[in-house]
């Protein structure tokens, strides 16, 4: 493993998109996705334009198409689901290649596929141009409750430590000739999970001691704050802004 960074999607770079303050990017992506979801599915051309917008962002961020497309695979389960829709949905039906398909099901499948794909692509672009630390700062800046950001940041910090512990426990099991091969081994694996929980919890207690020892009294000191200029905001919001225009056109046309 040794990934360390806990963040496989991130691609180091110095593009203008990388340089934007994280909270502007988070806000932009979120607004973009909301606009996409609100677009009527009949306006097929609008989704094409959204895709073009994302492609422009990817180009500006120097994220290669292959990388982006590969990351889209996370959506595969829902493609399977979408494929089912025309078969199971109600209403008027059409014959396609000898199969009777529901019209609304086809629309539904298209809707989920188009919006889902755009959503994943937007998230992937965000994740591949923003470092973990930055994302957390961005969330903090966007006024997510500080406690929630702290929990997230501890989770990120110790995610690797704990998965690494889990890996060592697996190696220890396997070195002693244990290979989980079926349901009858669940109890052994569950013991691993239980031990992992205890270790995690105890580590949480020790981390708390270390924090208290350095003067923690319930709230994290603010060490870093990210700020964005008006120009940066308008640059970031260009994406959802344009998308909004497309969306409004989609409704009116």
């Amino acid at each position, binding site marked *: 493993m040794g990934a360390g960074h806990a963040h496989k999607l991130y691609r180091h770079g110095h593009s203008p998109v990388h340089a934007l303050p994280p909270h502007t990017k988070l806000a932009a992506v979120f607004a973009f996705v909301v606009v996409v979801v609100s677009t009527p599915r009949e306006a097929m051309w609008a989704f094409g334009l959204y895709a073009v917008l994302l492609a422009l962002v990817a180009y500006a961020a120097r994220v290669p198409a292959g990388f982006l497309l*590969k990351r889209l695979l996370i959506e595969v389960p829902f493609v399977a689901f979408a494929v089912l829709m025309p078969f199971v949905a*109600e209403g008027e039906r059409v014959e396609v290649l000898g199969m009777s398909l529901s019209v*609304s099901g086809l629309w539904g499948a298209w809707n989920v596929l188009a919006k889902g794909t755009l*959503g994943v692509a937007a*998230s992937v672009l965000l994740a591949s141009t923003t470092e973990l630390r930055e994302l957390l700062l961005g969330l903090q800046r966007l006024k997510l409750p500080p406690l929630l950001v702290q929990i997230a940041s501890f989770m*990120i910090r110790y995610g690797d430590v704990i*998965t690494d512990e*889990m890996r060592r426990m697996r190696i220890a099991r396997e070195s002693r000739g244990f290979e989980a091969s079926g349901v009858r081994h669940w109890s052994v*694996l569950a013991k691993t999970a239980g031990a992992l929980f205890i270790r995690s919890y105890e580590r949480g207690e020790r981390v708390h001691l270390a924090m*208290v020892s350095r003067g923690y009294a319930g709230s994290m000191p603010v060490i870093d704050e990210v700020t964005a200029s008006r120009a940066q905001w308008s640059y970031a919001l260009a994406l959802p802004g344009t998308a909004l225009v497309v969306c409004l056109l989609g409704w009116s046309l």
Partner: protein
Amino acid sequence: MHVPDGFIDAPTSVATGVVAAAAVAASLRGARRELDERTAPLAGLVAAFIFAVQMLNFPVAAGTSGHLLGGALAAILVGPYTGVLCVSVVLLMQGILFADGGLTALGVNITCMGIVTVVVAYALFRGLVKVLPRTRRSVTAASFVAALVSVPASALAFTALYAVGGTTDVSIGKVATAMVGVHILIGIGEAAITALTVGAVIAVRPDLVHGARDLRQRLKLLVNGELVDAPADEPTAAPVAARSPRKVWAAGLVASLVLAGFVSFYASASPDGLEKVAADNGIDKKVEEHAAADSPLADYGVKDITDARLSGGLAGVIGVGVTMVAGTGVFWAVRRRRTAEGADASDVSPASTSA
């Protein structure tokens, strides 16, 4: 089963987002009451644990495997408030870092997988623990039932949202049947793993199982050759009583019974359809599970599609197999547990701060 963007329409997503935000806000307050200043590190570490344990593969048969969703486990181990927080943070991070689950569907995902799972599991668990005899076996059994019901309950919650804001007019009956059917199967696996894991924790550190804290025996100390009661724990370690605990338990039990009735109604309504959709939707389940191969964060983004082929008819087989083994497994584990009782008195961490 992370819901992507576009599945649920925008107004419903927003409304659910508000619900989720309110529940998370309430949990933040609740968790602070339970853990005070220890909330951030402890909830963070437990969230990391949930994240990690979702990567632990439980082999089922013929190269397939399942993994824990963790909502019920979190609820039982760390309590409902912290549980909701942990699962929500995991979902948030999965959405932002790995594009797993749509950003607009975050509210839906948190509501279904975080809040409903945790609340149903915890209410049912507490209800059962109150009703059953005060033994560790009851705790394990209660964990099993709580986890079993929590998964289809979450699926029902999703169905309800779909009924309100679904973007395709699939009949709600069909969605419910498919969702609940598949999730009962998943729920059986979840239940077995959760019960076994809770059992494993309770054997070593019973004090860490939040849901069973009041089952702890009063400690006896040997002082000058005489046994005396240990002084009560510091307030931080004491479970925080809900405002009207009995009401909560009663409500939880009733809700769970209603849910269970609803579930079985749909499950029995069209058994043939259930099997088919279960098998078809099994594709979805399988692919997701296999994506979580053993290298935890590393390969998160790449799904192992080839396994989709396998999944076709396996869901049904898995279901039957798991049901049988789970039953015997729990019984067996509980029996073994009794021999391991009271194992660890020396393993006390110095962490009960009074600072």
